[in-house]
Structures are given as structure tokens and as C-alpha cells.
């Protein structure tokens, strides 16, 4: 047989299938955020296009006004100076608008890392911040995201594309658990030789009867089209099976839920695992 997965053995085949499933799920999750991302990009693009048109037309009239002033040997009129001030303020807006678009694109770029098979040492805070940039596109009007990072946390050796998926799942779940307005808090800390990431929401909490089933494949409480029932299953697999970490949660009905994720700072050498 020439199938490399078969040749590599069932464990490796399982791991490869798991990665493919996680990747497919990540794309599906991003797809669900797409409408919000489009909205968030359309707003600054709208401003830039409008400003560009306004500036182009106004520069023409400013040129005429200045030409007339020069001809008459007069200084520019107050109206001309006011128009120039407005144009300057529009270029400031354009800068802010471009930065907004860039931030979203940076967030998307992180997610575009397809199936990175190599372990990398990364700053986990950057991964979390990029995730927030995307989730904010959808939830920022009703959910405030607060970060309390341990700035001394060293780089974590991991599969970054997969960890993106973990944080995306947990932050989206946290925001969706909040019925109206609320807060999602993301804390990081160093615990022995592991990074501890806690994602808390001020949502409805998980009812006691559902708690034993939340990591089960196919289980979801979300409406059709919003959840696949695989998010937490994949999250648990990425954290525990792929990274040798641990995931747990604490929840109180009506108060909120906190998911805890522990990822070892160093992985066993890649050839031993993959």
C-alpha cells in the first residue's frame, strides 16, 4: 500500500483524521463569523471610499479658491482654510479605518495557517488577541472582552492553528452563553510547567443535567446552523490528545461559566508524537 497514513500506523492515522476534522470545523466556525467580519470591514471601507471621493472633489474646489486668491493677491479665505481642516480630519479617519481593516486581516491570517504540522513556540497572548479581533466583529456590541494576561508567561510550544481553534470555540461559546449584554474575561497564568488559560463568561451557566454531556460529539444546545455539536469535542481533543494538556470547567446557573485550559510549555519531541 502506498497510503502514507496507513503505513504510519493507526495512531498516526487517527491523529491525521483528528487534525483534518479540527481544520474543517475551524473553517466552519470562521464561516459563521463571516457575516460579522464582512460588516466590520464594510464599515471602514465605506468611510475610506466616501472620504476619498469627498477629498478628490474638495481638492478641486480648493485649487480654484486658492487660484482666485492668488490672482487677487489675497490670502486664502476662511472658507478655504475650513475646507482644508475638514480634509485633514478625513485623512485621519482614513488612517484609523485602514488600521481597523488591517487588524481584522491579521486576525484572519492567523486562522489561515492550514494544518501546521510542526510544533512552534508562540506567544499565546497574540493568538488570543487575534481570536478576540474576529469574535469582536460579531459580539462587540453586546459583549465586552477583558484580558488579564500574565505578562511573564513564556512562549508555549504548540500547534498554533489548532490552538486558534480552541480559543475561537471557547470565546464564541462564552459570548453565545450571554443572553443580552455581558463580559467575557480571559486570564492567563503560569502554573508549574504549564500555561493556564481561563475563559469566563457572565452568561446563563450550564444546567446540571447537561454538564456530563458537553464534551460529547454531536451534543449541542444551539439552534440549527449555529452549532455543529463538535466544538467542545474537538477542543478537548486538541488540548488533551494533541497537546497533552487538560480542559475542565466550572459553572453556576445564572452566574456564568469558566473554562480552564492547561497547555504544557514544552511538548515531547515531535517525532515521538506525530
Amino acid at each position, binding site marked *: 500500500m502506498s497510503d502514507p497514513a496507513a503505513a504510519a500506523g493507526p495512531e498516526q492515522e487517527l491523529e491525521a483524521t483528528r487534525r483534518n476534522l479540527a481544520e474543517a470545523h475551524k473553517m466552519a466556525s470562521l464561516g459563521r463569523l463571516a*457575516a460579522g467580519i*464582512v*460588516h*466590520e470591514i*464594510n*464599515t*471602514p*471601507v*465605506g*468611510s*475610506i*471610499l*466616501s*472620504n476619498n*471621493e*469627498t477629498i478628490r*472633489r*474638495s481638492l478641486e474646489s480648493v485649487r480654484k479658491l486658492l487660484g482666485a486668491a492668488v490672482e487677487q493677491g489675497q490670502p486664502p479665505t476662511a472658507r478655504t482654510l475650513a*475646507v482644508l481642516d*475638514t480634509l485633514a*480630519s*478625513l485623512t485621519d*479617519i482614513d488612517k*484609523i*479605518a485602514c488600521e481597523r481593516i488591517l487588524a481584522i486581516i491579521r486576525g484572519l491570517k492567523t486562522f489561515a495557517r492550514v494544518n501546521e504540522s510542526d510544533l512552534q513556540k508562540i506567544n499565546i497572548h497574540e493568538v488570543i488577541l487575534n481570536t478576540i479581533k474576529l469574535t469582536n466583529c460579531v459580539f462587540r*456590541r*453586546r459583549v465586552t472582552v477583558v484580558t488579564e494576561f500574565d505578562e511573564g508567561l513564556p512562549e508555549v510550544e504548540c500547534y498554533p492553528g489548532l490552538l486558534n481553534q480552541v480559543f475561537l470555540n471557547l470565546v464564541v461559546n462564552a459570548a453565545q452563553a450571554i443572553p443580552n*449584554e455581558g463580559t467575557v474575561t480571559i486570564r492567563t497564568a503560569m502554573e508549574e510547567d504549564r500555561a493556564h488559560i481561563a475563559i469566563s463568561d457572565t452568561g446563563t451557566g450550564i444546567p446540571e443535567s447537561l454538564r456530563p454531556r458537553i464534551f460529547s460529539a454531536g451534543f449541542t444546545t444551539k439552534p440549527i446552523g449555529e452549532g455543529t455539536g463538535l466544538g467542545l469535542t474537538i477542543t478537548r481533543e486538541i488540548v488533551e490528545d494533541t497537546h497533552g494538556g487538560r480542559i475542565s470547567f466550572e459553572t453556576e446557573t445564572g452566574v456564568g461559566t469558566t473554562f480552564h485550559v492547561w497547555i504544557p510549555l514544552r511538548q515531547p519531541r515531535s517525532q515521538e508524537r506525530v
Partner: protein
Amino acid sequence: MQPNGHGDQQPNIVVVDDEEMVVTSIRAFLTLETEYNIHGFTEPERAVQHLELNPVDVVISDYLMPKLNGIQFLSKARQLQPEAARVLLTGHADKQSAIQAINEVGLFQYLEKPWDNSQLLLIIQSAIERATLFRSLRDKISELDSAHSSLKNVQTRLLRAFL
């Protein structure tokens, strides 16, 4: 054309978007290209307060905003100033929200972001015309009502004189 029925006063346009950059861009464009009075708000609640106290010809609103979304806000605007034309400017190309807006708030126009300034200006110009026509119609109806009641009075007096 007499917007607001206030003689030579320029038309009043309210622009509401929780994004400051959108309000600034539209305000700058309209200020440089027209003589309209532009009232920009990033909080729909503040725009509602403005509508409670000031006559307005056109209300342009974003859809996705915290606390009060575009449809809820335009619905309030309709209650407060039914003659002002309502325009939804949204970055969220959601057909369902557009249909809801048309049905629930008697939307005049639906415009998607990124918008085109020339198109926006055309919409505002027709919206002002519509608002002016509505006001003029209201004034004519009120004149007719008053003429009708005068005639009624005359008729009553005539009847009394002859009976």
C-alpha cells in the same frame, strides 16, 4: 421647497451610526457638498432626544448598534416625526432585516455599506422632496379642514337665519 415648514431654513438631516468614522465621513461629505444642516450621533438614544425637540427631514441610520438597533430606532423616529423620510444604511447585507425594516418602519430607502456618495446624495434629495411633499400635503389637508369647518359654520348660520 420649504423643509420643516420653516421658511428658508435648510433641510435637517440626522445621521446615526455607532461608528464615529461613518458619521464623520457622511457629515464631511454633506457639509462640503450641500447646505444641509447635519446632525450626527453615535448613540441612537441621543438621536431620539434630538428628534423629540427638533424638526427633521431625513433620518439615516445604521442597522447594527448597541442597545437600540436601526429598526428599533427608526420605528421611534417614525412615531416622533412620521413625515421625516427614513433611510437604513447597513454593512450587514441581511435580506431579512431589510424586509423587516421596510414593513415595520415604512423605510424610504435601504443602502448598503460601502455606500456611494452620489447615490447617498440622490437618496437624500428625494427623501427631502418626499418629506416636503408630505408636509405640504398635511398643510393642505389642514387648510381644507379649516375651510370645511368655516363652510360648516356658514351653513349653520345660514340655516339658523332661514329657519
